């Protein structure tokens, strides 16, 4: 794996370092590309995994997000905006995939609520999340699992903060109801 520490200058602000890498990427510096990938890969894959609940698919999405971000890096007006831009692409790609999956689920109706008994927490949570609309699910996961602030969620989903607040309220309420049905309280 690419070791970002080798290329990180000691004492330089990470944000300033990233700006340097972005501007070097624009002129086709492969080392800078590697540094940017190494810096963001873990968080990107983790976010995609939590949204999609599938590690392999998450890697595909992260890869696609990197490719798209590097393809359009020339269009980026502000070098500081790279990380936000990258995560926004990733979240959007995840949402597109979730919409497709949801359409398949509606068609085949494979997501039946759990009827009693004991099952793994993760399996229950995955089933419950599939029953939420894509926007609510994404907001809930970004806030509760990724621990992002309202502003960060709003930036990633490209919606106002007020929309995030109301979506989160609805998502929590619906998730709670689904959870009660699932565990048969």
């Amino acid at each position, binding site marked *: *794996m690419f070791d970002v520490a080798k290329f990180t200058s000691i004492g330089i602000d990470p944000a300033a370092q990233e700006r340097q890498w972005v501007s070097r990427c624009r002129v086709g510096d492969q080392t800078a590309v590697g540094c940017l990938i190494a810096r963001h*890969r*873990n968080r990107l894959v983790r976010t995609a*995994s939590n949204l999609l609940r599938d590690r392999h698919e998450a890697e595909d999405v992260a890869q696609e997000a990197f490719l798209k971000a590097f*393809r359009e890096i020339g269009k980026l007006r502000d070098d500081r905006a790279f990380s936000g831009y990258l995560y926004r692409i990733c979240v959007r790609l995840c949402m597109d995939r979730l919409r497709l999956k949801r359409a398949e689920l509606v068609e085949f109706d494979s997501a039946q609520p759990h009827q009693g008994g004991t099952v793994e927490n993760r399996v229950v949570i995955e089933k419950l999340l599939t029953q939420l609309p894509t926007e609510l699910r994404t907001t809930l996961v970004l806030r509760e699992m990724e621990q992002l602030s309202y502003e960060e969620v709003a930036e990633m989903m490209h919606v106002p903060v007020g929309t995030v607040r109301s979506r989160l*309220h609805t998502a929590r309420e619906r*998730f709670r109801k689904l959870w009660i049905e699932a565990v048969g309280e």
Partner: protein
Amino acid sequence: MKLPVSRCGRFKLLLSEGEDRELTPRESHFMERHRSTCAKCKREESSQFLSLNMLRAASIDAKPAAHFDERVIRLVKVQSVKESLNYWSPAFVGCALACVALFATLHVLTLESPSNSVKLKSGEAMRSPDAFPELSLKPLPPFVR
């Protein structure tokens, strides 16, 4: 105009907001009081607490595969080559077409064209007798004379 919110509605709203910010003493007092009087809201509060805890616990801390970076870097290189090809391909095609046109023109010009002239020793040209146009004048009718 602000619509009146029921106590239970306000409780739910503050319950959700309490997850993201610290409630004011007044709001906390309201929550405390309502909790002691409304069993339904109290149950909802505990179920929300449990469901969100379950959700947070189900977070996946996935790490990318060992060769993830190399794969992405390779794909970025392929992508940049493709892009430059796409960028330059109209120029290549135009260049190729111009070359073909030039070649064809030169070829046509260098071809020995069938000439109807007779070359003389002195370098002058004279039209060959075969090439003279045939004149056939009809005799005038007698009344014209």
